[in-house]
């Protein structure tokens, strides 16, 4: 109880520190000081420290199951394992906003240490803008989502035991995702600051690139973890559902990816200044908009957490203020910064990056429209629709082919001007791609011209990216990311078109067949666990070579709240996943068994990791020749 109080007061001190920093920075800027004071760094350190203490005390309250705290009472339970008590801290609205705040103040501290050699005015202004965001979120947390509300009389048991959320991947998913998601805030503050201090140039690009890569890597990782969770916990065998909450993490990722390419161009050639700043603003606006959509309960989604309109109105107003602020800054300072000095030639790396940027922006707007269009339609015409995968497939797939083609040629172009030669080598490449695609299409047995075109595009990108490895001046970061991306597209495509599935109602002892595989339902074991009853099916599968594989799908019937979950059993190999789930049918002797072959599933995860690895390489590469 005392610890919970400590957390609350620590938050208030944090807010006071932020106000102090804000005024301190304004005064310093007005004075025209040019020496960065240790005091400022100290204050920012304290600000982070206060939020950190507050966060720790919330974790502590969760660990000791302090049910005098409303958040703990609503979201925890004494029978939860320790790990899930801890991850429960950020698995709810209040706690996750505290995490927001922690990351928000943490990245500022990191920025201060990393930017020691940057111009004084730029640093001071970044702090100033960042404090506006920090104060906004402090007030939001304290006013509408205080994680330290007390309840009296103190309950003896908590309510929170949502079994679906008790999962290791989901436990670490929010912190990783937030590092990327909230990490974009510093890009936003720095972009506005650099505009005002006329610092949008090569050195700024070099400095801010670290934060773009940082956010991008963590955001990629966070999305990956979320998908992995959905794949084995939700029991549908899918990993991406175009759910609005997934979309709001994808949108900042897309604009960050575009920004990542722009910032390198800025660093090399000092062009696309306007565009880079706009992307910085868009990225963070999307990330707050995402927070709004998820946290306000405006969406009809399985992920919706809170349903308090006052929260929604607050974030919405705050978002509007931030976007208007950046618009004003942009309009006023645009002229002073941007004199386009360099000419751009049609055949150059700049052009190819610009084209890819437009493609990414197109994909971004498709996702954006798919996500918010239902809301607009509901308000304006009072009609309700839900936008599903067909919408995204139709609007995204056809444009993927030209996109990957530009992505294949782009990296081999040179800055400023390229003389393009079509030689024997290019011919050999195209032939090899065609053969590879035809073989793939033939092997999976789906003769569809559209699929063939997609495969040609994806394989071409893969080969072209791998080809870069031979070059002396290769950029390993770019090669890895592009190779990873092409592998990702190929595995997703293969996975989605050649999934095999069989659904059967069978009794113990019976068997069925899927694609040369015999699946035998051996037995059922019922066990009583601490807070649920577990029904486990024992399945033996004989593959083509008659090798036995055992799978153990499970049904868990939780008692409080009464809820049945289905735990899939998955056997992963390099070529395919075997995925099985069971369900009870009214007649207890029969079970509904769903067995799936999911080809190349593991490659979806591996290729995403390769993409992230590319980002890591880019961070740790020391001032070598930059080529993206």
């Amino acid at each position, binding site marked *: 109880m005392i610890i919970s109080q400590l957390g609350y007061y620590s938050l208030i001190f944090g807010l006071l520190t932020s106000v102090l920093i804000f005024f301190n920075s304004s005064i310093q800027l007005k004075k025209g000081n040019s020496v960065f004071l240790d005091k400022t760094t100290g204050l920012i350190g304290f600000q982070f420290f206060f939020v950190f203490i507050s966060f720790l005390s919330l974790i502590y309250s969760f660990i000791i199951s302090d049910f005098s705290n409303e958040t703990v009472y609503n979201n925890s339970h004494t029978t939860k394992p320790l790990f899930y008590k801890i991850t429960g801290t950020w698995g709810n609205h209040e706690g996750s906003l505290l995490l927001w705040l922690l990351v928000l103040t943490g990245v500022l501290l990191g920025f201060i240490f990393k930017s020691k050699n940057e111009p004084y005015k730029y640093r001071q202004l970044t702090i100033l803008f960042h404090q506006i965001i920090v104060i906004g979120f402090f007030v939001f947390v304290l006013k509408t989502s205080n994680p330290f509300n007390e309840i009296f009389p103190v309950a003896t048991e908590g309510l929170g035991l949502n079994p679906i959320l008790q999962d290791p991947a989901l436990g670490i998913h929010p912190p990783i995702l937030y590092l990327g998601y909230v990490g974009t805030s510093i890009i936003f503050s720095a972009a506005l600051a650099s505009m005002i201090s006329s610092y949008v140039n090569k050195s700024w690009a070099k400095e801010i690139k670290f934060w773009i890569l940082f956010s991008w890597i963590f955001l990629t990782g966070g999305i990956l973890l979320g998908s992995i969770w959905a794949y084995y916990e939700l029991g549908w065998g899918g990993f991406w559902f175009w759910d609005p909450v997934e979309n709001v993490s994808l949108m900042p990722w897309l604009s960050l990816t575009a920004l990542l390419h722009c910032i390198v161009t800025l660093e090399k050639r000092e062009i696309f200044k306007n565009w880079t700043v706009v992307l910085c603003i868009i990225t963070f606006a999307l990330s707050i908009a995402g927070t709004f959509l998820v946290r306000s309960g*405006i969406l009809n989604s399985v992920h919706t957490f809170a*349903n308090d309109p006052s929260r929604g109105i607050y974030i919405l107003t705050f978002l509007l203020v931030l976007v208007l602020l950046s618009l004003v800054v942009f309009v006023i300072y645009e002229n002073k910064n941007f004199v386009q000095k360099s000419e751009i030639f049609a055949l150059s790396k700049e052009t190819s990056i610009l084209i890819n940027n437009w493609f990414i922006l197109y994909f971004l707007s498709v996702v954006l429209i798919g996500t918010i269009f239902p809301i607009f339609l509901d*308000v304006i015409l009072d009609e*309700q629709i839900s936008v599903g995968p067909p919408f995204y497939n139709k609007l995204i797939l056809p444009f993927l082919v030209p996109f990957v083609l530009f992505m294949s040629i782009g990296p081999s172009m040179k800055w400023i001007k390229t003389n393009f030669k079509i030689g024997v080598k290019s011919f050999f490449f195209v032939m090899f791609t065609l053969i590879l695609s035809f073989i793939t299409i033939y092997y999976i047995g789906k003769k569809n011209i559209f699929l063939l075109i997609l495969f040609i595009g994806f394989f071409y990108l893969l080969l072209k990216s791998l080809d870069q490895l031979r070059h002396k001046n290769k950029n390993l970061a770019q090669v890895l990311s592009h190779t990873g991306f092409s592998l990702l597209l190929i595995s997703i495509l293969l996975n989605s078109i050649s999934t095999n599935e069989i659904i059967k109602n069978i009794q113990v002892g019976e068997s069925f067949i899927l694609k040369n595989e015999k699946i035998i339902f051996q037995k059922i074991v019922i066990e009583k666990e601490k807070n649920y009853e577990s029904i486990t099916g024992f399945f033996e599968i004989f593959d083509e070579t008659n090798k036995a594989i055992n799978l153990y799908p499970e049904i868990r019937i939780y008692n409080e709240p009464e809820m049945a979950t289905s735990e899939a059993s998955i056997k992963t190999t390099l070529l395919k996943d075997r995925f099985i789930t069971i369900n009870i049918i009214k007649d207890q002797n029969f079970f509904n068994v769903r067995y799936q072959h999911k080809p190349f599933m593991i490659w979806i995860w591996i290729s995403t990791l390769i993409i992230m690895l590319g980002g890591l390489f880019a961070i740790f590469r020391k001032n070598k020749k930059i080529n993206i």
Partner: protein
Amino acid sequence: MQFLEKIKRSIFSLIILILLILSFFVFKSALQKEKIYSPKIIDNQIFTDFEVIDLIEEKKINFDEVLFGKNFYLINIWSSWCEPCKLESDKLLELKNDTPIMMIGINYKDKKKNALNFLKLYGDPFDKIFIDKQGTISINFGAYGVPETFLISDENKVLKKYIGPLNDDDVFEIKKITNN
């Protein structure tokens, strides 16, 4: 040229500004719209004046006309993705066979294909099934989630409300009320 450039920029900023403010108000009213979906139950009387769409025939009908001619109606909110709904399916079949109640299913946020498949697997206890794609009809009844069951009298009064899957005691209670 400078002047033209300036005008172009102001117009551009103005358009963005208008778009922003417009979106702000759309989102704001969307936030408030949520409140409309509060239960429309007055004095235990369910609200019936709205249109529903039949799952199988896909025809529109006013819910008033559905609640007609019987002494008791049982409204069950279910979905194919809802695990506890599978557990209660045999209870509903039992009620259908043993009582004179008219069984009405509300198929909550579901796909037709999955719903029909569910009925094939677990049996179809319903006389009529209507779809509730957005979940708003269920909210009108005052439902909290799936599954949920309402026993309604001929005067459209909610006699009993069961949150979560029905169990044997609930079935016994319903039988007692309706067979008297």
